[in-house]
């Protein structure tokens, strides 16, 4: 069992909030994702068991949403927006800078196990382009210097 008892309890609590068990799939996946860091086949079965629905429904929903990583990622998942506004403001070069600096390929994990960089579509923060999301936090109006600073802070936190 990969899910902790706390996660399972939280999933059950979430499931109890809805008239249909199915409705709890996304909240439950979020709970599982927060604990494990990514989603995979056996985890769908565990989540399904905790809610009381079929693994089919959980896996269908999970694979539909690209924002759940389906492979192991670093402790900090850096999602760089490369959509139009950010793209115009230099998102691509920012991403290249990140990849070079962390010495990883897109989607890979840095050697220290801390970082994974991926490009994503619009995160709805166009007025503050370019921007990136690190786990649950938005970092906006980015420059190379700002990125250095953020990475250093994160490294320090470990």
């Amino acid at each position, binding site marked *: 069992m990969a899910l902790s008892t706390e996660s399972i309890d939280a999933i059950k609590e979430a499931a109890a909030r809805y008239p249909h068990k199915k409705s709890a799939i996304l909240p439950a996946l979020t709970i599982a994702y927060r604990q494990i860091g990514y989603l995979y*086949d*056996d985890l769908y*079965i565990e989540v399904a068991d905790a809610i009381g629905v*079929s*693994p*089919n*429904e959980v*896996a*269908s929903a999970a*694979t539909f949403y690209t924002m759940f990583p389906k492979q192991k990622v670093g402790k900090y998942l850096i999602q760089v927006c490369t959509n139009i506004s950010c793209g115009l403001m230099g998102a691509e070069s920012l991403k290249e800078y990140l990849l070079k600096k962390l010495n990883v390929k897109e989607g890979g994990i840095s050697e220290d196990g801390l970082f994974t960089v991926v490009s994503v579509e619009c995160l709805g923060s166009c007025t503050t382009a370019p921007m990136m999301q690190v786990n649950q936090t938005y970092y906006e109006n980015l420059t190379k210097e700002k990125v250095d600073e953020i990475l250093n802070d994160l490294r320090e936190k470990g």
Partner: protein
Amino acid sequence: MDKIKLKIDGIEIETEKGKTVLEAALENGIDIPVFCYHPCLKSIGACRICLVEIASPRGGEIVPWPKLQASCATAATEGMEVQTKSERVVKARRGVLEFILANHPLDCPTCDKGGECPLQDTTFKYGLDSSRFDERKRRFSGDTDSTFDDLQIGPEVIRNQNRCIHCYRCTRLVEERFFEQDLGHYQRGAFTEILPPPGGEIRNLYSGNVVEYCPVGALTNRDWRYKVRVWKTVEFPTICRYCSDGCNLRVSVFRNKIYRAQSRANWSIDEGLPCDLGRYGYQFAHHDDRLTKPMIRKDDELVESSWGEALTVIKNKIDETVKSRGSSGVACLVGESLSNEDYYTIGRFFRSVIGTNSIDHRIYRKKKLSFGKDVVERELCWNKLDIADLENASQFFIVGSDLHSENPITALRVLKAKRYSNARIMLLNPLPTHLNRAADEEHIYNAYSEVFLLQGLARLIVESKLYDPEKANLREDEAKLFLKETAEFELKTVSEKTGLAPVVLEALARSLCKTEKTVFISGENVRIHYQRDPILIALYNLAKLTGNLNGNSCGVLLLGGESNSMGCYLFGMRPDRLPYDKPFEKAEELKAVWGDIATDQPGNDTIDILQKINDEKIECAFLLGLDAVNHYPDSEFINRTLSKLDFMVVADLFLTDTARLADVVLPISSHFETDGTFVNWEGVMQKYTKSIKNIGESMPLWQIFAKLSAMFDADFKFRTADDVFRQYAPMIGRDGISRMATLPEKGLRFEKKKEYRDAGLMAVSYRQPSSEELPLTVLSGNGDHHFSRNFSTRCESLNNFLADPYIAINDKLAEDMTISEGDLIKLENSSGKIVAKALIWQNLPQDVVFVPDNFLEVKVNSVRSKDNDIDKVKLVKM
């Protein structure tokens, strides 16, 4: 239903309100191409190929709608004018096709669907001959070992995701109609994949339908693919030979071999969604085990012979027996899946040529074969509803029936009512059944406590005055009397005996009275129950109390049985009934055709026949299409009895265990090799046609007995199955039905009165069953994807779902005895023993074991004894 009028392509048509434009067009023969639409499913408008141009009246003017509409998702309205073939529509369809084909591989020559592919046909009709899409097509590599990106996703389903056009018919069928969860769509957009859930495979009982209804070659069938091209085959209509639902099927034949069976939608029965038993169950027809020549016992060994020799031996023996014993020395037992033509000819031969009435088919019960007077009085012997009626019921009370495996298509209607009108399904069984996937409540009662349960509920309803006296047509004094007579069914006792909590019983009683239109369904467990009649009467009581005796979608059903169990009844395969269920007093009409027949007294039923064989009063017996040794619920007794016979003739498709005991074995043809008719549980007579030549020298039974009749100088002159039909057709008494060809294509539906006689409440009492003092009760039924014996286990595809016998036990019991799954375990009692691998079922009650009754390696009837009402065993770990 309100009618509306609209114009499609300038043709004025009338349709029912609520139908879509597409349905209105298809009904009237106007062709609109479809991919995602399926009449069994709700429309989702996913594929856009059914686009049409619509204009509708507004303020006295016909106003065109600005955009083209998906006709499958647009309701037809009064005065609408629809164009399905205008230039604009054709252009749009070409555009849609171009998009669909952007990612669809052009591998038609190597695709198994080629030749019957809606996408191929539609492209041929509308599509462009070139594509503007220069980019690479999307590609899913399924099985990396295969050149074709194929991936096996179930025992019989192979997927090629590259070809998928995302119509979602497969996943919708599985979820919407079958209530299963073994196929889903994963990922998104163009990369959506059809897959079973992680670690699973698609193996539900209806899984073959996803292949048939895939509009492209994305899902193909393991058994059929690449064996033969579809345009080389010829299709023949047939009827399924397994359960008593009577699905309409068609088989594809090439060079005298059947390659597959597909649906042949009969909307009042199967809705074009047969189960896998029908779809793959044809394979026995070409099995190597088929008998091809008659066999005669010589020096204690069965040796092949000619028909002439075999029939002469039979004739001489019959003559000898009749001379020494009289005609009562001959008896006949028949199986329940022969044709009506067979039954009629058999009946005529035994009754008129030999002069014996000892004919029976009821081999499944230990005692009390016929329904008692009280059941007959309440008209419970005939099922009064039709499958389609179930759709409008609002509640199902299913007791003692594994409906899912006994009558899969009836179960599908129950599920339909659940899906589209949210009918309640209440399952009450001594063990969990697979219908529980959709049930609102499932209660497991102690095995063989049905009378307590049902009578207890009835008492509870009367006691707590939950019934409506007017609807139930029950007077105060009658209610009082009933309470007095049912004193043994106090709530506390009932709860104790059934193992259901009093609150559960109270809730059940309330729920029964609250909802109108309840159908009470019982099945095989009740059919073989030692207290069958009391259970049926108790169900009748409940139906009466809840006001469900009259009406189109309520009543009491006793299902189960085999493909022509009803035909057995109708065509006189009982000692006291003549064809067309006529009693002996009404034999005049028959005598005119048959000549003189003995109608002074009924013959022997199965129990008497077996007894008289033991007493050496019956010397010569015919067992026709019946594997009695494996069917009769007492293996030791039936073996001992049959070996006492002086002369036994067995006619079957295979050398069954019964045939091995015979003196003469006759090879009979399957229902694919002759014309004939079956009657399903609704009482619908449907015909099937000869699709292949007889295998070997086999002959259908009607032909065998027609030949025999000629040897007795009483030639029936039956040369074809139609000759037989023509002879009994006048008895059906329906105008215009004179030949098999005149039977309606969708079957001859007998008119039924959809109400039961109100014979009042009747108190029935519980009788303590006789049994051995052992801890576990044996229950049996069908294993997954199997039905009855000898046939389904000779179908390779069905064996791919389940090939090995097992004994299912409860998990706690397994733990206590340190048995793990797959260990060999033994069940034994004084009758015998069976050994098989253990299968652990979590929800199985602790005092019950379940053994599938399909596999002859593990014969359930060897732990059954005809002297005990119920069979108990002890479990031993090997």
